[in-house]
Every structure is written in C-alpha cells, then in structure tokens.
C-alpha cells in the first residue's frame, strides 16, 4: 500500500559531535552519560516521527525524558518535543524514544537530542546536529 521510498535519514551525529553541558551538575550519577547509539529515525509517517538513541544509563530517577529541539532551519531549532522513558534500573544503557508530531511530508528537519531526569536536570550531554527528511504524503519510513 505504501510505495517504497528512499528518504534521507542521514544522521550527522558522531561521537565527536556530541557536546556536553556543565559537568559536576549531578552528583551520584554517571559522569556525563555518553551516547552509545546516536539519535536516528526509528519511524516516520503521517506527520509523526520517532527519534531513538541509546546512552549510558543515566541512573537517578526512574523516568527520564528525551528532549529534542528541532525545526526546518538548522539555525533555528525552535520546536521542542519531550517524551518520558523508563530507564530500566541496573542496565548499562538506556533507550530513549522521542515522539515528534505535526511534521510536514517531504520536509527536512534538523534536531539536537538530549535527556533530562524526572526533575528536569540535564543528563549531561546534547547530541550534535542531526537531520531527517519526512517521507512524502502517505508514505512511511521504514517502508513496508
């Protein structure tokens, strides 16, 4: 039903591109949890996209929020998406999934991803600039 489409789901984030916020902010949690799998498009269709990444388990609260600043202009990431995720205590890494909605078909978006704990304190790292392009109207990524 959905024609196979190739879309640019290229992610510009590389380990080197990861910037970190001020250190020492959050005692008793892993010093600056690093991204293990960079933010990538998990799925996109009908105005919704899910970005997914994994990082060192930040510990602390049970719920952390993935926070994605995004926009269609890399210089103006004016929109914010924020999604709660459970960290799975005792695991080395935590998967974050963030839901972006209201996206336009065929449009290229830019974003930076970060995480905060249940009280809003930053988990210590923000990704470099990433990008993805929404599939065309009625199409989906990954195609099925």
């Amino acid at each position, binding site marked *: *039903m959905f024609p196979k489409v190739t879309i640019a789901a290229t992610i510009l984030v590389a380990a080197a591109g990861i910037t970190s916020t001020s250190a020492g902010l959050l005692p008793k949690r892993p010093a600056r949890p690093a991204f293990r799998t960079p933010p990538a498009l*998990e*799925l996109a*269709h*009908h*105005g*919704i996209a*899910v970005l997914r990444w994994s990082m060192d388990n930040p510990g602390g*609260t*049970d*719920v952390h929020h*993935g926070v994605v600043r995004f926009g269609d202009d890399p210089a103006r990431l004016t929109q*914010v*998406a*924020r*999604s*709660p*995720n*459970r960290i*799975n*205590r*005792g*695991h*080395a*890494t935590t*998967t*974050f*999934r*963030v*839901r972006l*909605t209201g996206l336009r078909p065929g449009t290229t978006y830019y974003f930076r991803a970060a995480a905060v*704990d*249940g*009280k*809003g304190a930053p988990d210590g790292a923000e990704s470099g600039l990433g990008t993805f392009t929404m599939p065309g109207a009625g199409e989906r990524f990954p195609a099925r």
Partner: protein
Amino acid sequence: MRLAAAVCLLAACSNDPPGQATPDPTIYDPYPPNVLPPDLDAEIQRVRAENATIFERTVAEWHALPPLTPVGNPPVFQGSGYNSIRVLGTLMNFDENMSIHKDRACSFCHMPYAGFNGPIPSLNLTAVAYPGSAQYRLGKRIPQRYPYATFFPVLAYNSDQGLFFGGNFWDGRSTGYILQSPNAQQAQHPPVDPNELGFADTACIAYRLSQAEYRPLFEGLFGPGSLAIAWPRDTEAICATPAGAASFGGNTTPIELSDDDRTKANVVYQHWGQAISLYQSSTHVNAFSSKFDAFLAGQYTLTPDEQAGYDLFRGKANCNSCHLDGRGSAVGSTDTSAAADVTPPFTCFGYANLGLPLNPAVAIFYESTPDAVGFTPNPDGFSFRDLGLGTFLRSGPGSAANPNSDWTPFAPGADGAMQVLTVRNVALTPAACPTTDAGRVDAQGAPVPYFQKAFFHNGYAKSLKQLVHFYNTRDLFAYPVTSGHCPTGTTEKVDCWPQPEVPNNIDMTFGNLGLTEREEDLIVTFMETLTDGFTTPFPNADTFTGTCATGGSAATQGNDHLIAAPPLPPCAADICGVPPLPGPATIP
C-alpha cells in the same frame, strides 16, 4: 424497549400492558443509537438478581458469626472482629439500598466474576461506563478492577523521582489524606457521585444504614448509639432525590441535622469506607490465589508458553518496568534473578499517559443536556477531555478537589496520566466463558466462548490481544485521525491507531516493541496466569447467569460497535484553560 422497562423500574412496575407504558419523562436518554446496548434493561435486572444472591449469602454469613466480645484496652473483638467487619463491609458493598432508588449496589459495576470489572458484556462493548441509580446517568470511565487496590499508599509526590505514587481511581483523586487509606476513602465517593449511587448528602448512608437489616452488626461493632440520629421528616425524600437536582441549589448537606448528629453521620461515613475497604483487603478480594502465585510458591510450573510469555513481559516487551513483578527488567539483557517479592503487585503504584485514543462511544460525551431534575452530567459535551491525574491536580470537572496546592504546579506533567492498574485479574471471567478474547479454540478445535470486557480507563481495547497490540504498535500505526476515521485500507486497532486524546507526556517506553503476532499471544497467555481462583475458588465468582459470546477474532473484537467521532471541538476551557496550562502541545 429500554424506556418501557426503565419506567417499570422507577414506578415499581405499573399495570400498563407490556409495550404500552408511556415514556417516563424522568428517564434521561440523551444518547444516539448504539451508545446504550438494546439489552441494557434486561442486563441490569440480571446483574441485580446475581447481586441479590451474594447479598443473601452474606446475610447468612452474618447470622453465623460468633458474638462480639471486646477484650483488652484498646478493646479488640477477639477472634471475631476481623470477620465481622469484613462481613459488614461485604453487606454494604452488595446492598442495593445504598442508592437513591434502592436499585444499585457498589457491586453492580464491580462483580466478582468479572474480576470486579463491569459485568455487562454489551455495555463493555459500547458505552463502557455504567448506569447509576438515576437512569441513565453514566460515568466517564470503565469500572476499575479493584483487587489489590488496597495496596496503594496515600497519594504523595515523590520529589526525588518527580512522580506521584499512590491514591485510588484512575486519576488518583481518592488520595486518602483524611482516612490515611485511599481505598477506604474511595468508598466515600460513589454514594454521592451523581452518576453512581446518586445521593445528594453523605448522611444518606447513615440514614439507610439505620434502616438496614444488618444494623445490629454495625451497632455491635461501633457502639449502640452509633446510628442514633434524629432524622428530619424530609430525609426519606431527600435521599430518594438524585444528587445535582436543581432543588438542592448546590447544597451538599440538604438534610438538616444538629451539629452532633452531623458529626455522628460523618463518623458513620468513615466506618462505611473502612469496612468496605476491609472487605477489599481480605482474601475475598485480594486472593493471591493465581497460577502465578502458585508458581512463586514453588507449587506450579509454568507451561512453556506461559514461561515464554513471562519472559517477554519482563524482557522484550518491558511491561514490568511499570507493572512490577518483583524482578528487574530483562529487556535487551538476561536476568536470572529470583523474585525478591513473593506477592508482586504488578503495578508501580504510579501513573502514566499511554497515549490512548479518545473513545467516542464513552457515554459521558453525550450527557451535555439537563436531565429531568435539571442536572447536566457533562456540560462540556465533546469538548470534554480526560486529562486524568492532570485534571485532578487542577481540581477540574469530573474529578475531585485537590487537597494539596503544593501539587498543583505538577499538573502539566501529569496530563493524560492514569493509574498504572495491576495486571492481576485482568483476564478473570465467569467460568462459563473462560476467556476475554474472541476466536479461541479448544484442544478439540471447538470455539471457546468469551466474556466481553473493556480495557484501559476508557475501554478502548476490547480484548487482551488488542491491549498488547496497542503497546506493541501504537507508534508504528499512528494516524492523525480520530476513532472511526482510519484511512481506507487500514483497520482500526489492527494497523491504525487514532491520535492520542492527550498528546503530552506520552510514555515512549513502548509503542514499537517489534513483537510478533505469536509473541503478543504469549503475553496474553502469561497475563492469564495472574487470574485468582487457581489454588482456591475465587469467592462469589460463581453467580454469572448471562450469556457468553462466540465468533469473531480478538484482533478486531468489538470493531462492529465503533462509533465515529464527530469533528471534535477544542478542549473545554474549564479543563484545558485552567492554570498551570497543559503543554507543550495544545490539547486538540
């Protein structure tokens, strides 16, 4: 049909020949076709008769109780006190006289054979909420299953976690702040809920208890003078008039009592909540008698399918990060630890927004016009949005007042959040219809009859298969449509999930789990091991006299009863316009 039989109910069955009863203007029926099921009146009578069976059994139990002998100081009714309060709470719970028209017990919406969920299959398929004593005022959510609800602590904000824990009700509004038990305090809500037992004054409970045949039991436990209240002449009439009636002018204490008598009535109301709560915390409700409990006790070995389902529940599907099973989550890793908790609650006692679609079949959306006594259950009509805990924190419509203003600022982070209900007994059904899910066949290939339940606070899922499929594919098959409007070529609940009712705070721990069809089924199989009554019969679960259903498939179960949502007006100002405002997204 519906109207005629209801008239009969209210007017104590007039002599009108069948089919000739004049429509009773006191009946409230603002619903379009298909919202209330055609067999509703017959089903109401069925449940009432089943309920009477349990009430009579409990009366017999009361008569068999040993005498109450106070011993020591503070006095304890040695040996018999516990069961006496349990029996009292059970009597109260199954007593139809505790409603305006003496036709609804608490249990009407929570029958044991349904795992204390709603007992009417046709209603679970449609309006999902249940009719209270004032016909047909219905609520906004499914009757919540309450085994293990007594384990919820008093509602508190945990500032280390930034989360709320505890409370009863889907939205936590029964905080327990006075009785220090959310469950005991919960029982103080339905008597004066206009859509439930329907009294205008909490003192009506003391009044009706003073007339109850089991009054001596109450007085034996709480003192000979505990119900000695000078009732004004108009008490009977007030307690037979639905809450919200214009004649009360918003007065919540229309029975004029002396200060002493008002205090007495308030004390009776506390005993009411606490006795019912003892019933719920007893093994008659919190039975811990499931296959899974036997497994934890080393007395049952899970079948390979049950074990595989359990492994998925605590592994790939990550269900136990919210529905705690006493062990760590094994998602993406192996965890062979033994259970640290031998009575795991299968809830974290917290709240989350699962991103469920708005269910336009829920009765409340249609109750925007006044009934015969001038009460409008939901003035917001289709502008009503169920923000759950968020609305409670703002003291919003359909909830209760929030007693702690320190909590109010957390409302935007709680919008859409509902209680993480225990998974225990979700699959409990009457023995005659041994499953919740359509399309099962037994070992001989014969169809297994099923009992139609409704799942999630708004009853959107109609089978456990659909419930798991939602967790598995919510994001994969998300569409920016409302229910009933999935694009051509897709099937709602199969490969189309309409947009969430509340777009904020949607928990992303799940939504694209990558489970296969078979894996989904295995998780359902595992959830069935959490049904009480395996090691010992579940008390009073044997009273079902209705009919089971057959045919169809669990994946599309109930889809023939979908109601297409009308174009939705924006969220009402008294819900979404109250600070602190919902955000970041606007609630459509």
